[in-house]
């Protein structure tokens, strides 16, 4: 594919049943599509779950991804988002010896705070747009983060 590759967020509504997640991930690996991140959780009071998949590909590839996803039997709906609100969460473990007020202030700027304090470490969390999470993680490097976990994106159409 020589066409330009672009980042896309796709939401998939699937029936809660055995191996439905494998069907989705097998489709991506089998057809050579990318998964940047994937989140999944049940939709309250329904027999469905919602997956949010961040992927990338040319326009043609993205179109195929949505069509192939829709072809899977347990898939109810596929949204290829154009206008959306997208958020991601990250948690970071810092040594308690770092400058805690700096870290706390930074977290606040990214909709977060220090959520746990232990004898030797603290855990901070932030929730923001994935690009801003990238920024945050770049900025906090100087405070010697010990461990970082990102949740992957969730998204809703505006």
């Amino acid at each position, binding site marked *: 594919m020589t066409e330009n590759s672009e980042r896309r967020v796709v939401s998939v509504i*699937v*029936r809660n049943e*055995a*191996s439905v997640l*494998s*069907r989705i991930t*097998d489709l991506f690996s*089998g057809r050579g599509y990318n998964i940047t991140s994937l989140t999944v959780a049940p939709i309250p009071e329904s027999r469905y779950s919602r997956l949010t998949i961040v992927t990338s590909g040319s326009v*043609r590839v993205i*179109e*195929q991804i949505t*069509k*192939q996803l*829709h*072809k899977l*039997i*347990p*898939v*109810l709906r596929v949204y290829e988002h154009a206008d959306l609100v997208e958020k991601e969460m990250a948690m970071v473990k810092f040594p308690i010896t770092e400058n805690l007020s700096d870290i706390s202030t930074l977290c606040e700027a990214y909709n977060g705070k220090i959520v746990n304090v232990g004898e030797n470490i603290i855990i901070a969390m932030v929730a923001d747009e994935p690009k801003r999470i990238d920024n945050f993680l770049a900025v906090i490097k100087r405070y010697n983060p010990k461990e970082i976990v990102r949740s992957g994106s969730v998204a809703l159409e505006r």
Partner: protein
Amino acid sequence: MQISGAQMVIEALIAEGVTTVFGYPGGAIMNVYDEIYKQDGFEHILTRHEQAAVHAAEGYSKASGKVGVAMITSGPGFTNAVTGLADAYMDSIPLVVISGQVPMSLIGTDAFQEIDAVGISRSCTKHNYLVTDAKDLPRILKEAFYIAASGRPGPVHVDIPKDVTAQIEEFNYDIELDLETYKPHVKGNPRQIKKAIEAISKAKRPVFYLGGGIINANAAYEVRDLVHRTGIPAVETFMARGVLPHDDELLIGMLGMHGSYASNMAMSETDLVIALGARFDDRVTGKLSEFAKNAGVIHVDIDPASISKLVNADFPIVGDVKNVVVDMLEQADRINSNHYESWRETVSNFDELHPLTFHEDSDRIKPQWVVKRVGELLGDNANISTDVGQHQMWAGQFYPFTRPRQFISSGGLGTMGFGFPAAMGVKSASPEKTSINFTGDGSILMNCQELMTAVEKKLPVINIILNNNYLGMVRQWQTLFYDKRHSETDLSVQPDFVKLAEAFGGIGYRVNTKEEFDAALKDAVEKDIVAFIEVIVHRLENVMPMVPSGGSLFNMMLLEKKETK
């Protein structure tokens, strides 16, 4: 009614109208086989390999239009069947394949003959199920048959643990399916159809591009009608052979890698491709960027994912091709067939320039002659299956097909060993026709154990082995593209095919001349038992014309005018 899971399988198959099941028993599926022993609602045909069971079910399905059913055990039984599942998936053949599994309590323990069957079949089936409770079995089997046959058809795999087949539960098959997430779109959008008709009426050089989906949708006769009403020339894919009768004056021929010059030129010169149930496979299009370069594209397909997958469709129409063609016929008056007079002439000039033909040889029978000769002798009275390779292409090129479901071949996956078991399935679905399998000296050995099934179940398939002592198609590519380095394709060391057939109780013929061939075929048809007719053919014959892999359709290697012997 309180019955076991195994009995539920039997009851469901009978309720679905299944008359023939192909299979092979084993430990995990024994409860079901015990019930098969006790019933007389359908016939079970014991193949001698699980792969053959699935191919036979495919042949049965293709010939009859019904869902084919195969049954196998867990572990190796299942893995042997995977090639058949993949083959059916590629060619959109509706199957329900039922496999045994180790008991629920042993799943995940690396038990004897345990394999993650649904994990393996996920990527080569339309859908699959692991049944964890016999209460679910009636619904799952009903869904399986519905999903296999509806929309774009395909194989559905149902994996049943041994303890589930023993579990006793209430059985009720008269249930409403609740498939909120699966609703195939069968009716074409009227506005799109109207636009498509308009585009056709304005086109100067339109071409129908007919695909195998027409046969799956039982739409061949409606398509014939549409082609004749519009007067637009048509090309067929390999999978669509028989949609138009071979002598139809609007049929240009088969297109693609080994299609006719005229078909490929028409496709290159057209200004509007009308694709019906075809999927723009790479063996059809050649180099994509050069395919129908200056043409608009109308694409009718039941599978939205097939549309604009490889070639952008200007007029996408998602729907069952039969429905859409019927809708198009209603508006066909808006198309004036005189409009395409000069285009039809251009197309027939292409054909006169380089007709599809071959050169006879005085010493050795040419393989193409054999195909043509069978066509002359049996014609409409035979159903034709093939294995995979040169003989397969020659069958597609030279057999005079007259009807849909006459030609059964492994098009998408290209499975050697498909032809013989598929032909047995064809014979069991369509016993009144002679079942011919064109095969090669390579392919036939990949499922020759089925001689035993054919003898036992009296399925008199006539296997015509075009023997060139080569793995011919690979040899052809080696000759043309690998500087004649015939790596591992020389099959000079061979069994005695006559004795091989006889060893199983079939009949064998070795043929060196045309007279011998005629006599052998006549005898085999009369004897009505499974036969091998080994025809010693010209060793180095190539399938021509040919679009080299990745080349453009208009750039074909053509048959040399006078062949050097």
